[in-house]
Each structure stands twice: as C-alpha cells, then as structure tokens.
C-alpha cells in the first residue's frame, strides 16, 4: 500500500537510513575492513524492519514473543549494528569497536557476544534454515512472533539456501518472511555473469512462496510488501527487493569492488559528505 504510508513516516525512515549509512562508512573506515557495498544495499530494508515492522523492545530483549530477525548475509553486520544502536539496543559509541579485538561487534554477527542478535551467521546458506527453525518454534508454542530472514543474492547460489527455502514452503510457514537483497553483485562481479540465479521470482514461487518484487530503496514499497506478507496466511512470503550495491555513495554504487573493501580516508570523507546531504539536495 505505497499510497497509504504517511509521508512523515517515510521521511523519518529515510532520515534514519541516512544516519545508518553514515555509520556503515565510519565503521568500515575505522576498522579498515568489512563489507560496505552489501551493507549499504540492505540498509533501507533493515531500517524498515528495525524501525517499523518488527515487534521488538530494547528494554525487553528476551521478550519471548518478540519478532525474530536473522541476517543470513551476516557480512552486512555494520548496517544491522548501526540500526540496532540507533534503535537503542546498544550504545551508539560501541559502533567504533567494530571488528576490534574484544568487541561484541564481530565481523559477522555473533549472538553469543551481542544478545540482541538472534542468530550468528556469516558462512552463507545457514540463516534461512535457522529462521525456519524459529518459525517452527513459534507455531509449536502458538506464539504470535514472526520471523524475518534477510538473504543475499550471492547466497542464492548455495544449495542449502534452497533446502531451507524448500522446508519453509513445505511447512507452509506463514509466519516466515524471506527478504532478498537483490543487488546483483557478489565478491567477484555480477551474479548473472558468475552463476546466474534468474529467474529468481519464479524460483521462489516454485518453492511455494507468495512472492513480491519491489524497489528495495522505496520505503512505501517496502512497508507495503511487509504489510502484504503479514496478511498472507497460507504460507511464507518472499520479498525480492531490487537494490543497488553501495547505495547512497556515488562512487560505490553498482561496484562489486566495494563488496569487501573499506573506504580509504578521502573516500570516507566524500561518502560521509554525500550521505549528510538532505535528500532534496540530491538530483
């Protein structure tokens, strides 16, 4: 329901996403490692989840009926850490410790160090399976909590991703939403030139997912799709979110080279200045 989303909600989410993107740049620059490209592509999706969709409460992190978020593409950790920090789950200053010795903010998300993380991920193809387990748990205990799994597109080349998706469809897990960050690029280049995953929407439909295709940087579309997922009661929903790797930073956009490469000082400064600009000032 894009037209139904109040404009102030959209403006607020956009402002939050800009702050998160700046934190992604600061974190990967400070650590001189990490994955800026895929963090920037998934930022709007995570912002919509953490600030709008998920039933979560920083004051009750172990609330049994909280919604579960599994970041299957665990390398996009900077975006998730920043979103959770801005939402009050960890001190914002702690973001500076990203990837440092002794930090709770591991290179890939780690639940044993940072309790607001639902599942440790990093090696691809495992997050969806854990999300399926969570959704089965909710069904067994008749809990209202919903499980959201955020998947990368390179990860769709991994066989176990499809095992887990098959299980979600087989068990008709209407409380499971899979969101694909379809930025089209992986470490070495474009997914379609390396090992094509298209037609991806047809694949999800064949695996029994109610499948939606959206612009993953358009908040009304993101919120509309999440709404539709909640109204879908017959089985799981897949949201294929078309995104731009490196979104919001001109020289990173569409460049696979920034999958796992941090910005240098000049790049970080330019990125932060671009991201600090009000959206109206952008072309």
């Amino acid at each position: 329901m894009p037209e139904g989303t109040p404009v102030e909600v959209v403006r607020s989410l956009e402002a939050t996403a800009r702050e998160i993107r700046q934190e992604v740049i600061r974190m990967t620059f400070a650590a001189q490692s990490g994955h800026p490209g895929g963090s920037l592509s998934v930022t709007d999706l995570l912002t919509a989840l953490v600030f709008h969709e998920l039933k979560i409460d920083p004051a009750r992190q172990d609330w049994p009926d909280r919604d579960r978020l599994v970041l299957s593409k665990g390398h996009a950790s900077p975006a998730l850490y920043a979103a959770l920090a801005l939402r009050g789950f960890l001190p914002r200053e702690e973001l500076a410790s990203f990837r440092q010795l002794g930090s709770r903010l591991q290179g890939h998300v780690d639940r044993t160090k940072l309790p607001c993380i639902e599942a440790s991920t990093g090696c691809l193809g495992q997050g969806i399976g854990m999300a399926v387990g969570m959704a089965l748990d909710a069904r067994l205990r008749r809990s209202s909590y919903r499980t959201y799994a955020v998947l990368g597109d390179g990860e769709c080349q991994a066989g176990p991703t499809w095992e887990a998706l098959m299980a979600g469809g087989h068990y008709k897990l209407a409380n499971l939403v899979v969101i694909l960050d379809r930025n089209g690029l992986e470490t070495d280049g474009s997914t379609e030139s390396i090992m094509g995953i298209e037609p991806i929407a047809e694949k999800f439909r064949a695996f029994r997912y109610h499948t939606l295709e959206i612009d993953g940087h358009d908040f009304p579309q993101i919120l509309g799709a999440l709404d539709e997922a909640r109204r879908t009661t017959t089985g799981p929903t897949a949201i294929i979110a078309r995104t731009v790797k490196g979104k919001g930073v001109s020289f990173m956009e569409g460049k696979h080279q920034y999958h796992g490469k941090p910005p240098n000082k000049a790049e970080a400064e330019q990125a932060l200045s671009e991201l600090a600009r009000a959206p109206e000032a952008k072309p």
Partner: protein
Amino acid sequence: MNAVLGKPESLRDAYGKELLALGEKDPNLVVLDADLSGSTRTVLFGQKFPERFFNVGVMEPTMMSIAAGLALQGRTVYASTFAVFAAGQAYNFVRQSICYNQANVKIVATHGGLLVGADGGTHQIVEDIGLMRGLPGMTVIVPADAPTTRAATVAVAERPGPAYIRLTRENLPTVTDGSFAIGKAAELRSGSDLTIVAVGALVARGLEVAEELAKVGISTRVLDFASVKPYDAPALLRAARDTGAILVLEEHTVLTGVGALVASTTSENYPVPVRRVGVPDVFGESGEPWALLDRYGMSKERIRDEAWELLRARGKVQ
C-alpha cells in the same frame, strides 16, 4: 571367552526408546531426522509425538540449521542421521549453526565407522570423532553398548549445549553397567601391567584380549573411554603411572581420534609408550562388518600383537 561379555543389543533401539521416554518427560523436546528415521529409530518418537517430529528429508546441512533455530528458542533438540551425513555432509552447519551459536542440539549419529558394512567406504565415516571433538563447546560420546547409549542419551539432555553421540549400526554386547557419566572413563577391568583404552565396538574386543592375557599372567586394565570430550584426563594419567603403557582401540582413523588424544595427553603430562589400533589412513570398502574390522587392522590378533609389543617395550616380557 565370552564370559566377560553380555548379550548383543541394538544401540539404535536403545537410543530410540530412551528418546521416546525423554519426550514424554519434556514437552519442549523436539526431534529431527533426515529420511532415515527407521534406521536411526527416531521413528519411535515420531509416531508418538508427530507434532514435535520433523523429518526434513535428504537435507542434512539444513537439518542442523533448523535444529539450531529451534534450540535457540529454549528447546532441547535431537537431530539424527547417519554419521557420514551428520559429521561429514553437514560439518560447517554443525560448526556455525550449532556450535558457534552454542545451540542446545544433540546430534545422535548412527552408522559410524566401518561396521556399516556392505554399503561400503562412501558411507563408512572414520573421521567423525576427530571432526566433532575439534569443535569448541562440543560434547562427544562414543558408547560401547546399549546401557551406555541409554545413559548418554539422557546425560546430554541434562548438559546444556551441543553434543555428538556416535552409535554403531551393529548390535554390540553389553560391557558396562550403564553407569555412564560425561567426563568419566569407566574402568571395566583393573590391571597393572598394561592399560587398554577403547571406545565403541572395540571395547568388547579389548576385554576379550585382556582375558586372554590374564591367562598368561598379564594384568590388563581396560578403560571404556565413551566420554571422548570432555575426557577423563585423571584416569588416563593414573593408567599411565600405574601400568606404564597404553594401547588405544578405536574404529576410527588413527590420525585424529582417541589414540591421538591419548598420545598427546600422556606425552604432555606423563609420557609412556602408546600404541594405536584403528583404521590406517584409508577409506573402507564393502564387506561383512566384523570381517572389515579384521581386514583394516582391528582384529583380536592385531590387538594382541600390539599389546605384546608394548609389554616388550616396557621390559615386562622378553
């Protein structure tokens, strides 16, 4: 000779029945299997508690992830399949989804080792103990008989965190009184000239050889080392001190199994001669299960020869 051994019993049946009993006590316990529930005997649980049983089909890696997802919500989860799939096919899923997440998943893997028999080398995993004991936080248990299997099935439920229990396809004679405890070796026979440390199917052979040695005046201690991780270092070092030589028996590659564990522990703390009887650095093949043990270096004759070798090395015999 068989006087020391009890009636052969199925370890898998013992597991399946104990799991059913656990399921009756704990309504939050769930069980997963990967299309082998008849063989692993989780079918018994599945028939009684269909809502809490998930047969996920042939997707062992993802079975481990789903199990972790369920366990992270506070459940005790058992996941069963053959050892080659649990420890081999699914290794990195056991590593990240279960161990790295500290998920409360109990992997009970049947059909470990060469005793798989006719199915051949593809299915006879002899590397699983090494793979699993290398994982931080993993408890590893290799029962020698049905009573230990029953006790271990319960014991891992009472100990939070990941566990791997390796079972054998073949029925095995009862050699223990079932008083298994995690972290403890069971002294099945006392002795002062030599210690046999054994796991799984080879515990019975160790006892038989010890009985033969007794007839010629050699006193052999036999330790059932079912708790591979955590392991009973004090019992091991007592054996080293008291008997001066250790012979390890395992149906597993000698490169990474219990023999490697015993050798490293003694050499760091109380060096004594250690010899390893197990699978050399090769894959198995199809054949009658017990004939495979003989063919691949774990015959009673070989165990006896290695025992004499150690006794000679210690100057206890000419």
